[in-house]
C-alpha cells in the first residue's frame, strides 16, 4: 500500500501532468485545458492528507531514491511549508479552472504545460529540504514564468519577458554560486545538515554565501531594488499567470529566504539588515502603486508593497512577528490572486488596462466588483477582513519593544497603508460610482471565471470571519520556527 500522504507526490503529480499536457495535444486539443485542474485537485487532496501527519509529528520528511539524507534529496514539510504548499496547490487549482475560460490564445497546450510547471516549481521551492534542489526549483519556476510572461508575444510582453529573463538568470547564477560556496565549506547541500555543520565556519565564509543567496532569491522575491522586473512582468503576463506570480511565486521566494535565514544564518544583526530592505520595498512599492494608471501595474506594485510588509514582519525575528508574517502571506496570496483574476475578467470586458476606463464597471460586474472590494479591503487591512487580523498582529509584534526605531518603522508601515488605501479607494470609487466612459457593453465575467473568483473569495471571507484556526496554526508554525523545531525534528525524523 502506497502511502499517498507523501510530500513528494506534491511535486511529482504536477510534473507528471506537465508531460501529459505536452503530449495530450497529440490526441485532443481541448484535453489540455482540463488536465491542470486534475493535477492541482489531486495536489490539494494530498496536501490535506498530509495535514494529520504534520500536526502529529510537526514535520514530515520524504526522501527520494531510497537514500537517506543528507545524501538523498529530501522533501521537508513542516507546518509552515505545508500550509504554503496548500495555498499554492489551491491557487493552482482555482486558477486552472479560471484558465479554462480565460485563455483563448494559441498555443494553448504549451500554456497549460508551462502553467502547471510554474505552480509545480513553486511547490517544489516550498517543500524542498535541499539547497541545490531549491536552485533547480527556482530555475524551473523562473523559466516557466519567463515563458508565461512572454506568452502574449506582443510588444510589452516580450520586453517584460526578456527583462525578467535577464534579471532572473543573473539571480539564478548568484544563487547557485552562493549554494556552491556553502557546499564547498560544509560538504553538504541539505539545509539542516548545513545548519549543523556551519556552526564552526567563520563569519565571512558563511555570510558571503548568504549575500549571494539573498540577492538571488531577492530578485524573485521582489525586494527593492531587485524588483524592477516585477512591475513589467505582472501586467504583461496573462492575468491568471499574474495571479500565480503575485500570489505565491514571490511569496515562495521570500519563504525560501525565511527558511534559509532562519535555519542557517540565524543572527540578530542580519535581521536588522533585512529590515532595511523590507521597509524600502514597502515604501517604493506602495508609493509607486499610487501613481499608476495601469490597473495591473498598480496591483503589481502593490504586491511589492505587500511583500515588503510581510518581509518586515519576518525580520522582527519574534514568534509574533513570524506569525504576523504568515498571516499576511495568507492574506496576500488569497486576496492578490483573487484581485488579479477579477481584474483579468474585467479587462476582457473593458478592453483596456487604464484605470480611467474602469469607471462604472462595478455596477455592471457586480459579483466581480464585490469580491474586488473584499480583496482590496483585506489588503488594506480593514476589518472585518483577514488583512485586519494580520496587520494587527504585525503592528503588535513590531511594537513589542517600544524603541524609537520600531515606532518609526510602524509609522512608515502605517503611512504606506494610508497610501495603499488612497489608491485602492480611488479605484473602488471610480469602479462603483464613476460614470462609464465608453458605450461598450459590459457584462459580468463568464461563469467559470467567476467560479474561481468566488471560491477564492469565499475562502477569504471564511478565514476573515473565522480566523481562529489560522491564528492558532500560524502561531504554532511561528513558534516551531523560532524554537528551531525544524532542525531538531528534521534531525530526529530524518535520521541525520
Amino acid at each position: 500500500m502506497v502511502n499517498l500522504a507523501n510530500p513528494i507526490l506534491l511535486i511529482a503529480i504536477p510534473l507528471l501532468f506537465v508531460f501529459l499536457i505536452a503530449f495530450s495535444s497529440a490526441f485532443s486539443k481541448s484535453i489540455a485545458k482540463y488536465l491542470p485542474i486534475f493535477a492541482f485537485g489531486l495536489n490539494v487532496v494530498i496536501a490535506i492528507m498530509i495535514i494529520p501527519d504534520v500536526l502529529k509529528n510537526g514535520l514530515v520528511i520524504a526522501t527520494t531514491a531510497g537514500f537517506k539524507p543528507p545524501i538523498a534529496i529530501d522533501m521537508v514539510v513542516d507546518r509552515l511549508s505545508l500550509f504554503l504548499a496548500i495555498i499554492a496547490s489551491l491557487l493552482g487549482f482555482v486558477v486552472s479552472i479560471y484558465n479554462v475560460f480565460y485563455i483563448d490564445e494559441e498555443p494553448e497546450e504549451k500554456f497549460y504545460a508551462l502553467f502547471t510547471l510554474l505552480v509545480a516549481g513553486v511547490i517544489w521551492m516550498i517543500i524542498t529540504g535541499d539547497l541545490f534542489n531549491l536552485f533547480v526549483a527556482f530555475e524551473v519556476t523562473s523559466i516557466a514564468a519567463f515563458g508565461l510572461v512572454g506568452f502574449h508575444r506582443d510588444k510589452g510582453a516580450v520586453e517584460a519577458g526578456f527583462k525578467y529573463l535577464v534579471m532572473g538568470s543573473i539571480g539564478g547564477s548568484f544563487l547557485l554560486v552562493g549554494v556552491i560556496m556553502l557546499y564547498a565549506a560544509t560538504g553538504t547541500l541539505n539545509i539542516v545538515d548545513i545548519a549543523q555543520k556551519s556552526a564552526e565556519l567563520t563569519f565571512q565564509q558563511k555570510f558571503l554565501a548568504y549575500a549571494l543567496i539573498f540577492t538571488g532569491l531577492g530578485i524573485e522575491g521582489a525586494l527593492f531594488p531587485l524588483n524592477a522586473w516585477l512591475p513589467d512582468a505582472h501586467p504583461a503576463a496573462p492575468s491568471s499567470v499574474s495571479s500565480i506570480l503575485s500570489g505565491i511565486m514571490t511569496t515562495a521566494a521570500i519563504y525560501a529566504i525565511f527558511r534559509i535565514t532562519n535555519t542557517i544564518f540565524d543572527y540578530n544583526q542580519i535581521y536588522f539588515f533585512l529590515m532595511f530592505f523590507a521597509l524600502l520595498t514597502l515604501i517604493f512599492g506602495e508609493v509607486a502603486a499610487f501613481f499608476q494608471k495601469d490597473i495591473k501595474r498598480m496591483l503589481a506594485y502593490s504586491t511589492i508593497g505587500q511583500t515588503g510588509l510581510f518581509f518586515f514582519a519576518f525580520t522582527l525575528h519574534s514568534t509574533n512577528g513570524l506569525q504576523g508574517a504568515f498571516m499576511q502571506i495568507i492574506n496576500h496570496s488569497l486576496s492578490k490572486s483573487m484581485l488579479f483574476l477579477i481584474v483579468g475578467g474585467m479587462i476582457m470586458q473593458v478592453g483596456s488596462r487604464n484605470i480611467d476606463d474602469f469607471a462604472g464597471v462595478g455596477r455592471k460586474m457586480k459579483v466581480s466588483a464585490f469580491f474586488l472590494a473584499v480583496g482590496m479591503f483585506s489588503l488594506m487591512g480593514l476589518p472585518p477582513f483577514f488583512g485586519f487580523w494580520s496587520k494587527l498582529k504585525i503592528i503588535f509584534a513590531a511594537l513589542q519593544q517600544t524603541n524609537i526605531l520600531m515606532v518609526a518603522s510602524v509609522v512608515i508601515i502605517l503611512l504606506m497603508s494610508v497610501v495603499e488605501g488612497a489608491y485602492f479607494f480611488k479605484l473602488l470609487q471610480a469602479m462603483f460610482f464613476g460614470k462609464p466612459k465608453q458605450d461598450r457593453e459590459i457584462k459580468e465575467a463568464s461563469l467559470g471565471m467567476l467560479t474561481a473568483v468566488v471560491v477564492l473569495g469565499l475562502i477569504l471571507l471564511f478565514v476573515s470571519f473565522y480566523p481562529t484556526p489560522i491564528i492558532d496554526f500560524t502561531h504554532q508554525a511561528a513558534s516551531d520556527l523560532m524554537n528551531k523545531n525544524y532542525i531538531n525534528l528534521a534531525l530526529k525524523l530524518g535520521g541525520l
Partner: protein
Amino acid sequence: MNMSLELLLATPFIGGLLTYIGGKVHRWVRNIFAVLFSLLTLGEMSLFYNTTFKGDVWGSLFGSKLILQTNPITWLFLLIVTSISLLVIVFSVDDMKHEEDHIVLDSYYMQLLFVEGAMIGIVLAGDLITFFMFWEIMSWTSYFLIVHGGKKSMDAGYKYIIMSIIGAYAMFVAIAMIYSKAHSLVYPDVALVLSQSSPTFTIWIIILLGVGFFVKAAVMPLHTWLPDAHSEAPSPVSPLLSGVLIKMGAYGLFIIFYGLMSANLAKNIMPSIFSTPVLLYIVQWLAALSIVLATFLAIMQEDAKRLLAYSSISQIGYVVLGLATGTSLGVAGGLFHALNHAIFKSLLFLAVGAVIYRTGTRNLSDLGGLVKKMPFTFVALVVGIIALAGVPPLNGFVSKWMIYEALLQKKEVFLLIMAFVGSTGAFLYVYRLVHSIFLGQLSQKHENVKDVPILMQIPMWVLVIATVIYGIFPGLAMDVIVKGMKMFGFAPIAYNLYGFPQGSTMGALKVINIASVLMISFVVAWIFFLLFSKSRKVSQYDNYAAGQVVTPELKYNYSFGFYMSFGRVIKPIFKISIERIYNYWVDAAKIFGDYYMRRVYTGNLETYNSYIVIVVTIAAAAVLLGGKIW
C-alpha cells in the same frame, strides 16, 4: 432581563444582510426589513436602560479578551445611534425613491444598518481591539454611504476615507503600544498600565488616540473632510454623519480621558492650567477654536448643507470643550450636548433634506418663501435652529448652559468667551438658514411645491418632540448621565427633572418656568393682538419698493451674500486655509514621490542589472568587512 449584548450588536448586521436579500424580492420587503431591524435594535437597546454594568466576553484574540460591555454612558450613545438610525431609515424610504438602480438602493440600506451596527460595536466595546475593529468598519461603511450622493460626493468621500484611515492608524499605533506593555487591551487593564507607566508614554498614548478621535469628531485642525462629506452625502445620510458619527469621536475622547486615564492620573503626570491638565487644556483650546472659526465659516456659506456641516464642527466643539473640562458639570454638559446635538442637527438636516427633496436645490439664494408651501418642515426647522442657537427653552440651551457654568466655575474665562461668541454667531447662520429657505419671496418655480410625504414627516415630528422634551425636562437625560458618570468617578451633580437647583458656585436653572412663562406671555400677547382689528392678507408682491411695482419675474429678495458686510470684518481670518496647507503638503509629497519613482524604475535593463550588482557588492563588502557595517 437576559438580553445579550452580542445579539444587540449582531441585529443590525444580520438585518443589513437580510435587507439586502429582501431587496431582491421587492423594494417594500427591503424597506420594511430595514425599518423593522432598526426598530428591533432600538428595542433591544432600550432593555438596557437600567443596567448599570454588564460585560460579556465574546472572543479572544492574541491573548487579549474581546469584551462587550454596557453602562449608562454607553446607553446614552446607544440611544443616539439607534434612534437616529431608525429615523434616518424611515426618512430614506421616500427620500431615496428617485434612485432607479435598486441594487444601489439595496446596498444603501445595508450600509446604513452596517454603519449603525459598527457604531453600536464601538460604543459597546470593552476593549481596544473591539473598539478599533468597529471603528474601522464604521469608517469604510460610512464612506460608501457618503459616495452615494453623486459626482461631487466622490471627492468628499475620498477625502473622508483618507483622513479617517490616517486617524485610525494613529490610534492603531497607540493601541499597539499599549498592547506591548499590557498584553491585554481590556479597558481596566489598560487603565492600570497607563497609571503605572511613565508620563511620556501616557502622553503619547493620549495624543495618538486623540488624533484618531479628533479626525472623526472633526475638531480643528483635522476637520477638513467634514464640510465636504456632510454636505455632499445624500440627505438622509447627513444626519447620521453629523448627528451620530462624529459623536463617536466624542465618545472616544470620553473613554480615553475618563475611562482609560482617570482625571487624577492626568493631573499627576502633567502640569495644570486653570486646574486642568495641560493636555486637556490644549484640547479645550482646539475645541474653542473650532467653535469660533467654524461659526465664522458657517455664517459665510451659501449652501444649506454646508452651512449645517460647519455648524456641526462648531457644535462638536462644545461637546469636546465640555468633555475636556474634567469637572462633573462640564463633562455632563458635554455628554448632554452630544445627545442634544444629535437630536437637533439630525432634525435640521432632515428638514433641509425635505426641502431638497421638493425643490432639488440646496443653494440658499435659489430658495425662499417656502413657509407657505411647506409649513410643517418650517416648524421643524425653526425648532431645530432655536435649539441649535441655544435659546431657551429648547434642549440646546440646557447643555450649553451647563458647559458655560462649568467653565465659569473653573474660571476658564477665555474659553467661555469663545464659546459664547460661537453661540451668538450661531444666531446669524441659523437665521440665514430659515430666512433664505422659508421666508422672503417665494420664487415662481416653487409655486407647486408641497410639504413632504408623511413618512418623511414622522422622523421630523419625533425629533421635534424630543427637542422640546429634553429641553424642558433635562432631568430625563441627566438621570442617565449622572448615573453613568458615577461609574467613572465623578461627583454627582445636583439636578432635578426641570433643571438645576441653585448651587454654591453656579446659578440655578429651571427650564420649565422659562418655558411656561414664555408660553403664557405669548398667549397673552396674542390675545391682546387679536383684540384689535383683523389684518388684511396681501400677496408677497404687495410690497414697499420705493414706488416701483414688484412683479413675479423680479427677484425682489435679499438672500445672496447675506452677511457680506460681516464677511469684510472677518476676511483676514479666511486668508489662512487649513485645507490649503494640507493640499500643499500632499501635492509636494506627490511630486516628490513621482520624481524619485521615475528615477528608480527607468525601464532600462542596464540600470536594473546594475542594481543587482550593486546590492551584491554592498552585501559582499559588508560581509568581508566582518559585518562591521551594521
